[in-house]
C-alpha cells in the first residue's frame, strides 16, 4: 500500500505557508506519484477529521484574539507535519505481530490471563471481520496509546538492512508455516513457564537469518493468542491412534453418530477438519473389520470357509499394522525434532492422505466383504465374493482374487477328498453334498446323499456340480455296497507315488478343476459299471427278469401252466406254498431253465398275494425274484412292483390262451365225436366259430404284447446298457423308462389305458365264462351221444337252455370286443392302430351295428 503522504501536501484552501510545506513534503518524500484529484478529496477529509479530533480534546485557548479557525488550522498543520514526517512505522507491518505483542503485554501486566483472553477474543472477532482494511495500524495505535507499563516490543524494521543480508532462504518454509497452526494454549503456558530461555533466545535473534527470526517470533507470539488452535502434528498423532481404533485426544468416537468427531472446544480450520474426518474414516473401517474378525474367529457357525476369510482379513490387517508403525515412527521423530525445519519428508495431513490412499481402498473393500458375508457359509460365501471380482478396477480384481484363493482353500480340500476318496469331511455343513447318516446301505444311491444347491460356488457350473456329486456317490457306492476298495486304493497309491497328479485345486484355475473332475468322473463311472456288470452280473439279472417274470422262457411257463393249471382253479385257500415251490422246481428242471445259472435260479420263487374272498388260485399266484444290494439300486422296489404287475397281466393272458387252446383241442374232435348227435351240429359249428374268434383275438393281443411291446423295449434297454451308459444314474433311469413303457403299452398304466385294461379284463372274463358254457355244451353233447349210443333221446329244453347260455356269452364277448376296439381306434399310436387293424381283421367287427353300451 502506498502511503499517500503526498496527498497531504494538498491543502486546498490553505495558506501559502502550507503550500511551501507541501512542496517541502513532496521534496522530502521524493514521493510517489498519485492522482491528485482523488487525493484532494482525501486531503480535505483528512483535514476535517483532524480538526474534529482536535476539538475532542478540550484545549482551552489562551489567546482569545486569534480566530478559532486559524487556531485550529495552526494545530492541524502542525499535526499534519508530525504525521507526514513519520511515514513509515518503525516496526514490521504485521497485525498478528502486534496482536500477539499486545497479548503478551496484557499477560505480563497483571499476571492474570483474563485480559489477555478477552483481548484474544476481541481480536478474533476483529480478525474475522473484513470491514477494516488496516487493522494493523489501528492496533498499533491502540497499543501505543495504551497506558500500560510494558512497552510494545516489536521486531525492528530491518527492511533497510535488507540489501546487506541474504534473501530469506526458504519460501516453502514460509508457506508451511502458514498451514501450521500455532501451539495449543497448553503448550504456550508450558512455554511461558520456561520463559527465560526463550527470552535469551530472543536476544540472539539478530544472528539468525531474518526468515528464521520471523518464524520464531511468530511461533512464540502466536502461542499466546487464544487457546483454540491445535497443532497439525498433534492431530497427526491422534490420527495414528484412530487408525488403530483407539480414541485420540482431540478426535473421539461418537457412538450416537457412529462416527468420529473432534472434541468440542477446539477449533481447526475447515479444510483441515475435512481431511481429519476423511482420515478418521480409516479408523472406523478398521474397527468394523476387527470386530468381525474377533467375533467370528472362534465361531463355528460360520464354517471353515468363513474362518479362512477371517484369516485372510487378519493377514491384511497385519499389513495395515505395518503401515501404521511406519507412520508412527515418522510422527514421533518429527515431534521430537521440533526445532528442525520441515522438509520434504515431513508428515502433514495432506501427505498422510496420499500415503493412506491405498490402504483406505483395501480397508473399504474388506469392510464391504464383512458386510456382505455376514451370514453366509461355504460355497454361498464364495459365490458372493466371486461376484465382486467382476470389477473393472484391476486393483480390486487382484486383491479379491488373492483373498478368494485363501478363502476357497477349505472348499477345494473338501472337494478333492470327495472326488478322490468319496469321503465327506464337512463338519459345518458347507459342502455342496450333504449326507444323511440315517439312511441305510440299501438306499445309499438314491437317498443318502443330496446336493445343496446354494453351496455350489458360482464359478463352477451346475453340470460340474452334478458330476462331482455323482463321482463321490459312486465311490461311496463302490466302497460300501460293492465292498470294493480297489478303486480308492488305486487312486491313493497313484497319488502317493506321484503327488503332482493329484491336483490341488485352487481358485482361479476353474478350467483345470473342470478337466480333473471330468477325468475322475469318467474313471469312476466306468469302474462302477464294470463292477456291476461283471461282479454283480447286472445284465444277467435283467435277462433273467425277462425270462421268468415277463414269461420269456416259454417252455418253462408252459410246463408251469400245465402243472399248475388245475391247482390254481381251486379256491386260493387250499393252496399251499410249499406245494407250489415244489412244482416250480420240477418245472425248472424239466425245461431249459435248468441250464441257467444256479444263482439266478435261486432267486426265483413263488409268492402268494393277499387272499381275498372268493379268490381262485389264479388270483393270488405270482412268481418272484429276489434282489439284494447292490443290484437293488437298479431293481428298486418300485421297479419290482412294476415287474409283478406286468407278470400278472401276462399270466392272465396266458391263462386265457391256455384255456382257449385246450378248448380248441377239445372241440376240434367234437364234430367227429358227436356226429351222431345231429341237432347240436349247428351248435358245434357256432361254438367252433366263436372259439376261433376268441382265439384270434387273444393271439393277436398276445403277439402285440410279446413282440411289439416287450421285445422292442428290451432291445432298447439292452443296447443302451451295453453301449451308451456311462453311469449308474442313467442305467436306473433307462430301466425305469423301459418298465413304464411296457406298462403303458400293456394297458396297465396311464389313465386312458387303465380303462382299456378294465375292458380287457372283462373280455378275459367273458371268454372264461364262455368256456364254462362250452363245457356245459360239451357235457350235454357227451351225454347226448352216450344216450344216442344207448338209444335214448335227450330232452330238448336242456339244449335250449344251453344254447341260450352260449348265445348270451358269445354276445357278451362280442360286445366287449367292440367296445374295446372302439376305444383302441381313438389312439394315435401306430402300434395300437395296427393292433386294432389286426384285431378287426377285414372289418369284421365294424360290420356289427350294435351300439356300444356303457360299461
Amino acid at each position, binding site marked *: 500500500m502506498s502511503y499517500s503522504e503526498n496527498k497531504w501536501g494538498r491543502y486546498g484552501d490553505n495558506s501559502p505557508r502550507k503550500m511551501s510545506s507541501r512542496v517541502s513534503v513532496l521534496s522530502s518524500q521524493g514521493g510517489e506519484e498519485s492522482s491528485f484529484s482523488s487525493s484532494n478529496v482525501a486531503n480535505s477529509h483528512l483535514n476535517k477529521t483532524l480538526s474534529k479530533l482536535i476539538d475532542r480534546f478540550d484545549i482551552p485557548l489562551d489567546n482569545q484574539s486569534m480566530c478559532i479557525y486559524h487556531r485550529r488550522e495552526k494545530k492541524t498543520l502542525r499535526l499534519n507535519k508530525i504525521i507526514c514526517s513519520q511515514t513509515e512505522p518503525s516496526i514490521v507491518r504485521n497485525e498478528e505481530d502486534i496482536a500477539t505483542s499486545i497479548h503478551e503485554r496484557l499477560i505480563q501486566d497483571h499476571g492474570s490471563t483474563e485480559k489477555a483472553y478477552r483481548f484474544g477474543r476481541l481480536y478474533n*472477532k476483529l480478525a474475522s471481520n473484513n470491514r477494516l482494511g488496516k487493522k494493523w495500524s489501528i492496533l498499533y495505535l491502540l497499543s501505543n*496509546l495504551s497506558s500500560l507499563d510494558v512497552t510494545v516490543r516489536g521486531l525492528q524494521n530491518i527492511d533497510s538492512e535488507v540489501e546487506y543480508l541474504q534473501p530469506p532462504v526458504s519460501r516453502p518454509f514460509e508457506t508451511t508455516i502458514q498451514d501450521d497452526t500455532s501451539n495449543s494454549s497448553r503448550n504456550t503456558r508450558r512455554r511461558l513457564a520456561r520463559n527465560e530461555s526463550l527470552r535469551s533466545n530472543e536476544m540472539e535473534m539478530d544472528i539468525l537469518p531474518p526468515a528464521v527470526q520471523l518464524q520464531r517470533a511468530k511461533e512464540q507470539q502466536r502461542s499466546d493468542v487464544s487457546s483454540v488452535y491445535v497443532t497439525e502434528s498433534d492431530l497427526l498423532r491422534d490420527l495414528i491412534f484412530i487408525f488403530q481404533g483407539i480414541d485420540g485426544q482431540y478426535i473421539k468416537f461418537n457412538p450416537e453418530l457412529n462416527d468420529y468427531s473432534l472434541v468440542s472446544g477446539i477449533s481447526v480450520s475447515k479444510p483441515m477438519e475435512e481431511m481429519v474426518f476423511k482420515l478418521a474414516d480409516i479408523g472406523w473401517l478398521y474397527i468394523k473389520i476387527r470386530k468381525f474378525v474377533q467375533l467370528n474367529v472362534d465361531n463355528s457357525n460360520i464354517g471353515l470357509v468363513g474362518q479362512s476369510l477371517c484369516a485372510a482379513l487378519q493377514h491384511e490387517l497385519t499389513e495395515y499394522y505395518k503401515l501404521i508403525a511406519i507412520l508412527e515412527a515418522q510422527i514421533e521423530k518429527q515431534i521430537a525434532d521440533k526445532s528442525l525445519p520441515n522438509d520434504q519428508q515431513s508428515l502433514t495431513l495432506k501427505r498422510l492422505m496420499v500415503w493412506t490412499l491405498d490402504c483406505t481402498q483395501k480397508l473399504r473393500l474388506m469392510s464391504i466383504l464383512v458386510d456382505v458375508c455376514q451370514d453366509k457359509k461355504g460355497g454361498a460365501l464364495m459365490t458372493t465374493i466371486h461376484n465382486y471380482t467382476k470389477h473393472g478396477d484391476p486393483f480390486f480384481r487382484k486383491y479379491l482374487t488373492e483373498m478368494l484363493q485363501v478363502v476357497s482353500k477349505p472348499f477345494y480340500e473338501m472337494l478333492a477328498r470327495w472326488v478322490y476318496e468319496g469321503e465327506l469331511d464337512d463338519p459345518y455343513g458347507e459342502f455342496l453334498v450333504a449326507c444323511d447318516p440315517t439312511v441305510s446301505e440299501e438306499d445309499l444311491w438314491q437317498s443318502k446323499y443330496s446336493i445343496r444347491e446354494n453351496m455350489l460356488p458360482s464359478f463352477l457350473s451346475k453340470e460340474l456340480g452334478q458330476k462331482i456329486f455323482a463321482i463321490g456317490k459312486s465311490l461311496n457306492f463302490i466302497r460300501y455296497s460293492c465292498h470294493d476298495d480297489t478303486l480308492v486304493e488305486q487312486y491313493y497309491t497313484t497319488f502317493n507315488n506321484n503327488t503332482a497328479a493329484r491336483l490341488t485345486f485352487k481358485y482361479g484355475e476353474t478350467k483345470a478343476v473342470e478337466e480333473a473332475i471330468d477325468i475322475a468322473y469318467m474313471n469312476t463311472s466306468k469302474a462302477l459299471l464294470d463292477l456291476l456288470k461283471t461282479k454283480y452280473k447286472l445284465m444277467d439279472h435283467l435277462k433273467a427278469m425277462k425270462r421268468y417274470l415277463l414269461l420269456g422262457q416259454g417252455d418253462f411257463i408252459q410246463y408251469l401252466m400245465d402243472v399248475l393249471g388245475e391247482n390254481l382253479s381251486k379256491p386260493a385257500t387250499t393252496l399251499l406254498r410249499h406245494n407250489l415251490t415244489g412244482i416250480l422246481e420240477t418245472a425248472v428242471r424239466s425245461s431249459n431253465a435248468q441250464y441257467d445259472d444256479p444263482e439266478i435260479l435261486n432267486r426265483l420263487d413263488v409268492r402268494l398275494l393277499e387272499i381275498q374272498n372268493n379268490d381262485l388260485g389264479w388270483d393270488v399266484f405270482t412268481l418272484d425274484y429276489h434282489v439284494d444290494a447292490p443290484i437293488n439300486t437298479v431293481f428298486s422296489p418300485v421297479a419290482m412292483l412294476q415287474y409283478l404287475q406286468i407278470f400278472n397281466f401276462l399270466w392272465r393272458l396266458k391263462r386265457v390262451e391256455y384255456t382257449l387252446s385246450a378248448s380248441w383241442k377239445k372241440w376240434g374232435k367234437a364234430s367227429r365225436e358227436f356226429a351222431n348227435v345231429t341237432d347240436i351240429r349247428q351248435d358245434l359249428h357256432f361254438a367252433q366259430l366263436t372259439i376261433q374268434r376268441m382265439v384270434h383275438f387273444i393271439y393277436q393281443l398276445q403277439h402285440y404284447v410279446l413282440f411289439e411291446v416287450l421285445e422292442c423295449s428290451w432291445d432298447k434297454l439292452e443296447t443302451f446298457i451295453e453301449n451308451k451308459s456311462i453311469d449308474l444314474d442313467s442305467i436306473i433311469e433307462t430301466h425305469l423308462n423301459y418298465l413304464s413303457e411296457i406298462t403303458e403299452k400293456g394297458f396297465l398304466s396311464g389313465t386312458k389305458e387303465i380303462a382299456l385294461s378294465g375292458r380287457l379284463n372283462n373280455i378275459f372274463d367273458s371268454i372264461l365264462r364262455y368256456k364254462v358254457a362250452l363245457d356245459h355244451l360239451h357235457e350235454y353233447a357227451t351225454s347226448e351221444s352216450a344216450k344216442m349210443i344207448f338209444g335214448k333221446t335227450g330232452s330238448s329244453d336242456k339244449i335250449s337252455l344251453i344254447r341260450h347260455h352260449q348265445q348270451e356269452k358269445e354276445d357278451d364277448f362280442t360286445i366287449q370286443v367292440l367296445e374295446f376296439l372302439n376305444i383302441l381306434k381313438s389312439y394315435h399310436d401306430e402300434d395300437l392302430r395296427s393292433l386294432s387293424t389286426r384285431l378287426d381283421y377285414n372289418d369284421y367287427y365294424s360290420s356289427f351295428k350294435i351300439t356300444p353300451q356303457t360299461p
Partner: protein
Amino acid sequence: MESTRNNEVKETIDQMATLLNTGLDRETLGLCVSLCERGVNPEALASVIKDLRKQELTATESNIH
C-alpha cells in the same frame, strides 16, 4: 446489515481500547480509525494524540492556577 457490522466493529475496537487503557473515548476512537483507514501512519497519529493530550494537560494545569 452493514450498520450492525459496523457497530460490531466499533464495539470491538472500543472494548480493545478500554482493555488497553488507552483513554480514548468512542468518538475520538472513531476518528482515529477513520484516519488510520485513510492510511495515516499510526505512530505519527499516536504522537499527535499524545501531543494533544499534553497540550490539554498543560492547558488544564495552567487553568487551575
